[in-house]
């Protein structure tokens, strides 16, 4: 059976070159960078190189603006809480977009319990914020604006440079979560007007266990994990040296190969998009159409009349790895907050599937996915009471209304006794 990995948003394999670069740091060069002897000094040098490679990837002026954390989540937490705590006396208000990653949203909600307040900027049906809304949301008490570059679920690219200009005008630092873009799309601290940027090498063929936070020297930030004085006092704890070294090499490769990788994925994205559209009726594509407002890796679709987990499982049984924003795949039984934020009908949110491409996917992969996915949808629709009831005119389609029958939501509410959340 063909094996097609279409979940590059969740993880990527480590490049062979990255693995080879990491190898000596497990056994031979195993020192702690805080040590003053050979073993410590050697790994300090290696960490400096990695910092330079990270800085180069995002056009940062100096490697001293790069902090290493354990992952993207910790970077988000540090950016949000570290800036909030450092500027407590200036104000206790934050602005963020409605489709930020949970690591941003939940950090802000945690601060709310500690006395901060925030304004959530809404997104339109394609997931885009309006820059004017960010401007309106900023108050005299605002100490940070958080708008991510690319959305992890629906691939929307936000107008960051415009947000950056607003923030510069108002004198409020901008934090841009670039976890879903760095290494794939150009990210530049100056073009973005960003005071803080976070990303993780494990999203572009680097190792897990390291996150990056860029911080412009002018932005005040304090530590949120307390202890030793590693990372200039901004992040205590023994550094994950092999992952840092490997992450640096992955950044170097990503920078050099970015144009080629992106073009390759954009082409496959189009092929996949058109293939699925042609093969399967009642499919909705979420987020902007492929083009300047959409990540070239991401495809987010809703298969009407069937649920996402079943699609995901049958894909997996056919060797195809995908993700889903349906409530059934989440541990909290809630649909992705991103799908809720774009106002997607609950029925369509339930049928959600997320496919994210990578540099090693091929045309044949895409064709196999189109063909297999069509079979999977047919099988599951055959098992779905909704498909049958749609065909019999009892309920209507959300995607292509026929004017016959109740809406799915009305129907679901009547059979469950409650309205869908």
């Amino acid at each position, binding site marked *: 059976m063909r094996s097609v990995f279409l979940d590059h948003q969740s993880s990527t394999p480590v490049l062979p070159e990255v693995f080879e670069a990491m190898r000596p740091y497990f056994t031979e060069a195993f020192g702690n960078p805080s040590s003053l002897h050979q073993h410590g000094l050697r790994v300090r040098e290696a960490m400096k190189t990695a910092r330079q490679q990270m800085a180069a990837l995002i056009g940062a002026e100096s490697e001293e603006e790069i902090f290493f954390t354990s992952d993207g989540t910790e970077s988000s937490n540090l950016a949000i809480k570290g800036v909030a705590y450092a500027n407590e006396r200036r104000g206790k208000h934050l602005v963020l977009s409605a489709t930020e990653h949970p690591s941003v949203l939940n950090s802000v909600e945690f601060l709310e319990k500690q006395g901060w307040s925030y304004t959530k900027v809404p997104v339109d049906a394609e997931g885009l914020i309006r820059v004017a809304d960010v401007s309106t949301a900023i108050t005299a008490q605002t100490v940070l604006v958080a708008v991510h570059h690319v959305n992890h679920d629906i691939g929307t690219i936000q107008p960051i440079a415009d947000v950056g200009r607003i923030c510069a005008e108002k004198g409020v630092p901008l934090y841009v979560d670039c976890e879903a873009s760095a290494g794939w799309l150009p990210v530049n601290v100056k073009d973005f007007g960003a005071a803080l940027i976070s990303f993780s090498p494990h999203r572009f063929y680097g190792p897990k266990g390291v996150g990056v936070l860029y911080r412009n020297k002018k932005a005040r930030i304090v530590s949120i994990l307390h202890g030793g004085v590693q990372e200039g006092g901004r992040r205590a704890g023994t550094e994950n040296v092999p992952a840092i070294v490997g992450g640096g090499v992955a950044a170097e490769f990503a920078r050099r190969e970015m144009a080629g990788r992106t073009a390759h994925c954009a082409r496959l994205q189009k092929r996949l998009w058109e293939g699925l559209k042609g093969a399967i009726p009642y499919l909705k594509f979420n987020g902007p159409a492929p083009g300047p407002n959409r990540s070239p890796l991401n495809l987010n679709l809703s298969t009407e*009349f069937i*649920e996402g*987990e079943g699609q995901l*499982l049958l894909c997996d049984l056919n060797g195809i790895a995908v993700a889903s924003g349906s409530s059934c795949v989440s541990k909290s*039984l809630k649909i992705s907050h991103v799908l809720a934020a774009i106002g997607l009908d609950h029925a369509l949110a339930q049928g959600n599937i997320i496919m994210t491409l990578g540099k090693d996917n091929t045309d044949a992969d895409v064709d196999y996915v189109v063909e297999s996915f069509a079979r999977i949808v047919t099988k599951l629709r055959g098992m*779905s009471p909704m498909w049958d009831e749609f065909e019999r005119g009892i309920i209507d389609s959300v995607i292509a209304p026929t004017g016959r029958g109740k809406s799915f939501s009305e*129907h679901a509410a009547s059979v*469950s006794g409650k309205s*869908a*959340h």
Partner: protein
Amino acid sequence: MSDTYALYNSTVMDHFMNPRNMGDIRDADGVGEVGAAACGDIMKISLKIKDGRIEDARFKTFGCGSAIASSSMATELIKGRSIDEAMNFSNQEVVDALGGLPPVKIHCSVLAEEALKAALEDYIKKHPEKAALAAEAAPIGQIVHAT
């Protein structure tokens, strides 16, 4: 990868991949369709009843793997039972027969119980002469939640 890893145990996976009794019954004696408020799943069970006994049961499910497996297993279990036996059916039987479900998925088995009981209710509504029979059984809604 040589091995295969599964989200659910092999019985659940088997019922998901090869569901038993999937479909609708033409001229069913009772049909129940219920939805789970928790996650939005919808399940429909139709029954063929003869001489106070369930002769055939079919399901259709809009829901996750464990919802499909639960309805497949529930229809398997219920076939051949008398109406009053069926009225005492509990989701725990489904969970046990499936060899367990992840805690967050127990509600799928509850949905199967609810769909079955809705179908029985429908049958009784259509056949009021059987109401006495049903009254003797457990009231609908008394659901055993596994802990």
